């Protein structure tokens, strides 16, 4: 076996240019698989981080039923109220914090700067639910909510656009031509799972948005956090039961609201990114197979070219198995050299992509191992046919071959 290995290595070295071109196909294949998978994995990491930033124990309640979403769309739901939110907090023991949410779009002005952004009416629990620390100042207090106070908390993007380097706390900004006092500034949250800039927002007491800005009595949604991540299913059941009762929905009627878990919502996105990884990986695998066909091609040429060598070896006593192994080892060595170079190339390239492309790439040892093993298998698979062909040669004819 070790002798056959030596023979194979020698044959590879004898034809340096040809061998390196053969190897190149596998190098590109393995490299591409590793780069593609690491990019896909990187996307998954981004999404997972965002899910974590959303909070795994957060539930969202919208004022439409799942059935009606398709026909009526999300607009126009007026069934949820701030009282529903309070009731959930009081009566559902799987739920710890609850905050209503009302979204409005408004222009904020400070001095000669203005910025159009989303104004979100929330309750004091909102900060805890979203697990969103302040970088300075204070959050909206229960007193602010009760008093419909004109106070606000700025997201980092808003703060940067209105105040630049200035310190916004205790300054007055005008929202909807009304003066609001800035009580605090949120820390950076980054992009959401859907790519929205979460820092481009102004938080104000939900009562203030209801009465002073929009003149409505309902809320757009209710955010709730559960005791633990696992308690979310129990919480969904409790909330559903409570709201059905409060909204007087008969047993055979559809819900006029929907409870969604953030985890379930985001896991769809994770699934998408996994699909992308598989897609990218399979496209890259095609190039690996093409590389394998390259090996087969070269091995076929090589066995024809070396027919007389095979004849000589057979004449002095090489068995079919010896010839088969010799060529199989040759193909496998070529493909594993290609695999090794490909791994190095893939690692370097994905570092390169994440460094210059600003895209996080995650090198998973598993994908590297799989790509490498796969390249070896390609070598064996595509090397087998030419090797078998060589081993089945008739020694008399092989010796006569010119």
């Amino acid at each position, binding site marked *: 076996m070790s002798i056959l290995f030596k*023979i194979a290595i020698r044959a590879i070295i004898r034809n340096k240019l040809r061998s390196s071109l053969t190897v190149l196909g596998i190098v590109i294949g393995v490299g591409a698989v590793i780069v593609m998978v690491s990019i896909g994995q990187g996307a998954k990491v981004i999404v997972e981080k965002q899910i974590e930033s959303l909070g795994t124990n957060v539930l969202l309640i919208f004022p439409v039923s799942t059935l009606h979403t398709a026909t009526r769309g999300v607009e126009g739901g007026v069934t949820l109220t701030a009282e529903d939110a309070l009731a959930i907090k009081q009566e559902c023991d799987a739920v710890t914090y609850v905050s209503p949410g009302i979204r409005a779009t408004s222009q904020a002005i400070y001095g000669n700067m203005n910025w159009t952004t989303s104004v979100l009416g929330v309750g004091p629990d909102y900060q805890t639910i979203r697990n969103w620390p302040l970088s300075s100042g204070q959050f909206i207090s229960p007193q602010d909510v009760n008093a419909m106070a004109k106070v606000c908390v700025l997201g980092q993007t808003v703060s940067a656009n209105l105040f630049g380097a200035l310190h916004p706390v205790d300054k007055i900004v005008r929202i909807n031509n009304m003066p609001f006092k800035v009580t605090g500034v949120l820390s950076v949250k980054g992009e959401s799972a859907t790519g929205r800039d979460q820092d481009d927002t102004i938080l104000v007491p939900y009562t203030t948005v209801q009465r002073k800005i929009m003149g409505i009595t309902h809320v757009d949604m209710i955010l709730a956090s559960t005791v633990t991540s696992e308690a979310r299913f129990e919480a969904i059941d409790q909330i559903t039961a409570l709201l059905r009762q409060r909204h007087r929905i008969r047993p055979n009627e559809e819900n006029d609201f929907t409870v969604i878990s953030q985890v379930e919502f985001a896991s769809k996105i994770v699934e998408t990114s996994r699909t992308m990884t598989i897609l990218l990986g399979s496209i890259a695998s095609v190039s690996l197979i093409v590389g394998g066909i390259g090996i087969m091609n070269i091995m076929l040429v090589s066995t024809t070219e070396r027919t007389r060598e095979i004849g000589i070896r057979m004449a002095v006593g090489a068995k079919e198995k010896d010839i088969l192994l010799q060529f199989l080892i040759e193909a496998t060595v070529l493909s594993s050299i290609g695999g090794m170079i490909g791994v190095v190339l893939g690692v370097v390239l994905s570092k390169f992509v994440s460094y210059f492309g600003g895209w996080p790439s995650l090198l998973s040892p598993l994908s590297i191992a799989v790509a490498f093993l796969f390249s070896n298998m390609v070598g064996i698979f595509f090397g087998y046919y030419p090797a078998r062909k060589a081993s089945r040669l008739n020694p008399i004819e092989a010796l006569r071959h010119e």
Partner: protein
Amino acid sequence: MQDIILLDNIYKIYDMGEVQVMALKGVSLTIQQGEFVAIMGASGSGKSTLMNILGCLDRPSRGNYYLEGIDVSRFSKNELAEVRNKKIGFVFQNFNLLSRTTVWENIELPLIYRKRMTKTDTDRVHQILNALGIETFKKHYPNQLSGGQQQRVAIARAIVNNPALLLADEPTGNLDTVTSMDVMNILQNLNQQWNITIILVTHENDIARFARRIIVLKDGEVISDTPSESYHFTPTSKTS
């Protein structure tokens, strides 16, 4: 002396689709240990076919071939490979050395297809290199050698496994007269002094006279089997 080869009514029939070609029609002969036999005949006489069967490269269609008392005529491909590896050495007209492979590696080739290379094997290669006066070329490649030198390497390879039988198929066909004589002398010495049984296939009378027995084939049959009249032997120092 022991019969090293016993051919019993050997037939070789090639099936060419519609017609069947009978290359050998009932060849029977015995060759004893230490003989030097020349097989002669025109092309198409069946001498190549006989050579292939004797060399265990091919099997007879009918009849039995006993090599050192063992019937090898029904051996499988792998069994034949093993027989070739252990009992037979080949010398070809066109040398058939592996190119881009050193002289040393060419000579040890039969040995590497055995289980394991031992110190004895290495010593054996050394011994043969010395005996044939080619040890200075051991790291050379065949294309750096003259025809005569290449044929010496081929002979070295043929005897490295200490074969029962050395088959030489037109060994001087690609060599000039002087070198041919030289190569024949080496074969003669191996026969005389190492007591190696040699079967030589040739169509040249000048070459056949180095053998002690001449078998002539015609149309797949042995038409004469006689001792060489002009056999002569001059020992040379090279193979002593």
